[in-house]
Every structure is written in structure tokens, then in C-alpha cells.
């Protein structure tokens, strides 16, 4: 049976709420859900069943979650401010990276002279910019349909029914 994403998220939130982080103790992989169904953007493609537990064995928390899990950030651009940032109350991607991007609110925020993060990707950008380079490096699937199959709406969008079809591999 597939666990609905909301249940998984709720479980994760309960789990996090139930164990207040001790000072100096970073979050680790066991604090996270095993599987996350990424479906908030799914329209042209099927939702992605993301095995979080599997990815915790292939990457460090900070490779995806930046400084929010309390792991020391070594990226020179993040280090300037987040060298000693403790684990944050918000760890989930979509709580920082918005589903809607480049709408008037975000466009206005980019002009704020007091804001450093003027160039924060939206949720779709954050996923792809983070996942694809690593998938390419580790020879994991990196074409579109390697991670998510097209829906009927997606097939119509990409005009899959067009004649003169050539190779479909990226």
C-alpha cells in the first residue's frame, strides 16, 4: 500500500516535534521519513516516489538540506553566514522553496536590497538543480522519464503523437 504523502509528512513533523533537538546534536537520517512522495508539482509527469533512506546512504544531509540539519556547511558562499548554524525548524524542501516561482511576490523580493538570498530557486528548480548533477555524476537516471513517467497531460504537452518521430532518448 502506498502511504499518502501527507501522512508521511505528518509523521515526520510529529517525529521532529516529539524529539526536541539537543544542543550541538545534529539531525540524522533516522529523523527523516523513509519515502517521500513528491507530488505537489505533478501535472505533466507522475509523482516521484523518492526513497529518502536510500539517498541518505549516497549523500550527506547537507548535500540537499544545506545548513538546516545542523551539519557544518563548508560551501564558501554559505559558510560566511551559516558556519555555525544549528539545525533549523524547517528542513523540508518545499517550506523554503516555493511551488510558485517568479510571481509578483518573488519578483518584488528580488529587488529587496537587504535580502541576500535574492536568487533562491523555486521548488521545481531546487529539485532538478540538486538531483540532476548528482545523478549524472553517479550514472543514475538523468533523462526526464528516468525519474518520472509522462502523464496524459504531459504526452499532449510534448506533442508525443507528432509524426516523424526520431529517437526519444536524451
Amino acid at each position, binding site marked *: 500500500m502506498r502511504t499518502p504523502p501527507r501522512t508521511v509528512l505528518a509523521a515526520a513533523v510529529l517525529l521532529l516535534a516529539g524529539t526536541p533537538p539537543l544542543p550541538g546534536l545534529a539531525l540524522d537520517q533516522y529523523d527523516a521519513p523513509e519515502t517521500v512522495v513528491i507530488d505537489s508539482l505533478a501535472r505533466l509527469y507522475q509523482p516521484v516516489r523518492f526513497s529518502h533512506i536510500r539517498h541518505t546512504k549516497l549523500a550527506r544531509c547537507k548535500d540537499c538540506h544545506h545548513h538546516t540539519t545542523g551539519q557544518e556547511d563548508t560551501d564558501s558562499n554559505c559558510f560566511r553566514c551559516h558556519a555555525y548554524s544549528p539545525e533549523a525548524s524547517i528542513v523540508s524542501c518545499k517550506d523554503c522553496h516555493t511551488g510558485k516561482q517568479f510571481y*509578483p511576490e518573488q519578483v518584488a523580493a528580488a529587488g529587496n536590497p537587504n535580502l541576500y538570498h535574492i536568487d533562491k530557486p523555486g521548488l521545481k528548480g531546487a529539485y532538478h538543480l540538486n538531483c540532476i548533477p548528482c545523478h549524472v555524476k553517479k550514472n543514475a537516471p538523468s533523462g526526464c522519464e528516468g525519474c518520472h513517467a509522462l502523464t496524459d497531460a504531459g504526452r499532449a504537452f510534448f506533442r508525443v503523437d507528432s509524426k516523424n518521430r526520431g529517437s526519444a532518448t536524451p
Partner: protein
Amino acid sequence: MPTLIDRRRFLRGGLLASAAATVSLAPAQTEAASFEGYPNAMGVLVDLSRCVGCRSCEAACNKEQQLPAPEKPFNDFSVFDELHHGQKRRTDETRYTVVNRYDIPGREHPLFRKIQCNHCQEPACLTSCFVNAYTKTPEGAVVYDPDVCVGCRTCMIACPFLIPTFRYSSAFKPRIMKCVFCYDTRLTKGLPPACVEACPQEALTFGRRSDLVTMGRQRIRENPSAYVDHIYGEHEAGGTAWMYLSPAPFDQAGFDTSVPKEPILNYVKDFLGIVPMVLTIWPALFAGFHLLAHRKEKMQQVNKNEGEV
């Protein structure tokens, strides 16, 4: 026969008058040259280091602009190998935007470049159009009005990026076909263009042009090894709304790096400034010279006639 004015004086006078008129027109020209775009104009920053060549932008454009069905589906990547007369794919009446692949020697992965109208701050197409079919809107789009267009296609030649194309396929409704920044359907509502919204990699960043320049500089500053230290379009052709960042030299990714850093308009406006003067002042001026030159002759004729009577 003595005349009031000889040919030499006549020409000298004409030239002096032309020069005077040119000088008197000069202030208006200086004003045009200092136009730096509408303050809140929007733009798009295209980051070539992010593009993976998925062609989602092409599909989104096709849908949004209700363009004809493509020859091949948008998830068919064999199009990157196509060459038409030895050239990579270009925009045409069926597609306002095209992504091409560039295999650059020494780079592990190819680069992909999306082309579309760059929506210049001072568009050459607009300048070249003698019926004013083009408008640069305060939102940043360069839009086209097919109702006034006479189909001369001068804009296609004027564009330094070779973007406007002609709908040759329609005998009764021919018109220029080009990207309009989704002006009617999205830009006027504060929404990003369809291609930007479709891009999974956020290789396309939509925002106020001035903010995008800041963002582009920040990306280069924070990751100097990942980019060439240049934003293509910040100054090219006098500045464009669509700008590019590239990890490889721009000429290797198919960009025309010989595009001048000032508006194309600057190359022709000295000449264009004289045209109305020649058409309006010269006829009256030379008619006056003619009348003056022949006045004495006429007077003599009149006197002679009177003497005979």
C-alpha cells in the same frame, strides 16, 4: 547674363542650411541615445550552465502561442543533430523559440542554448519599421501589430539576432512571427512567460531586468570558475531584456560576439535625422532660391514689355 546667385553659391547655401538644420535637430537625438530602458521593465536571465536541453520551453511556447504542431515531438532529441543549410535550427513561423546543442571541445558535457527574441531596449526591428508595427512596452516586451504591417520584412534584416520570421505559408494572412514575451496572456498580468514557468532547471530566471543584472553578477562572483565573466545582453545591441550567462566563451556557444555594444539605431540615426529635413526643408528652400534667381530676369522681361507698349 548677370544673375543674383550662381550655381556655386546656390549649393553652398543649401549645404549650410542642411548643416544648420542638423544642428538644430541634435538635442532630440541626444535624448534618444540616453534612453536606458523603462525602469520597471522585466527580463529573463538564461543560465547556459543550467540548461539540460529538455525542450520543455519549446513545448510550452508552442502551447501558449497556439502554434502549429511540430514535425517531431518535443521530447524527441534527434532535433539537436539537425542541420539546415549547414546551420543549427532557427526560429520560424512554427516556433518562436528553439534550443540548440553545442559540443564544445574540452568540455565534458554539451551546452544548450535557447534562442528567442531578446526584446532589446532599443530594438532595431522597431527602428527599421516605417509603419511603426513594433512597440517596446513599459513591461519590456517588443510586440508586433500585424494590422499595420505592410510585409516589407525590413525588420528581419535589421535584427542583429536574426529573430523575426515571416509566415510565408499563408498567402492571405502573411505576417511577421516572433516571440512576444507572452505579452497579452502573461506579462501584462505579472506572470512569467510560459517557457520560464515550464523550465525544470530554472535555467530561465524571470524578474525585473535591473534585478537580473544584479543576480547575474552575484552568480558569477560566487562561482567564478563556473562562468565567463560577462552577461551577454547587458550591453549588446544597447542592452536586451533577455540576457545570458555561459560557462564557456560565448562565441563557442553560438553567440554573435560582434554585435555592437550600442543600439543599432545609433548607426543610422544621423542619416535618418536628415531624411525628414531633406523632404520638408529642401523643396521650400530651393524653390525660394529659384524664385530669387529668376526674379531679376522676370523684372527685366516686365520692363521690356512695358517699354514696347
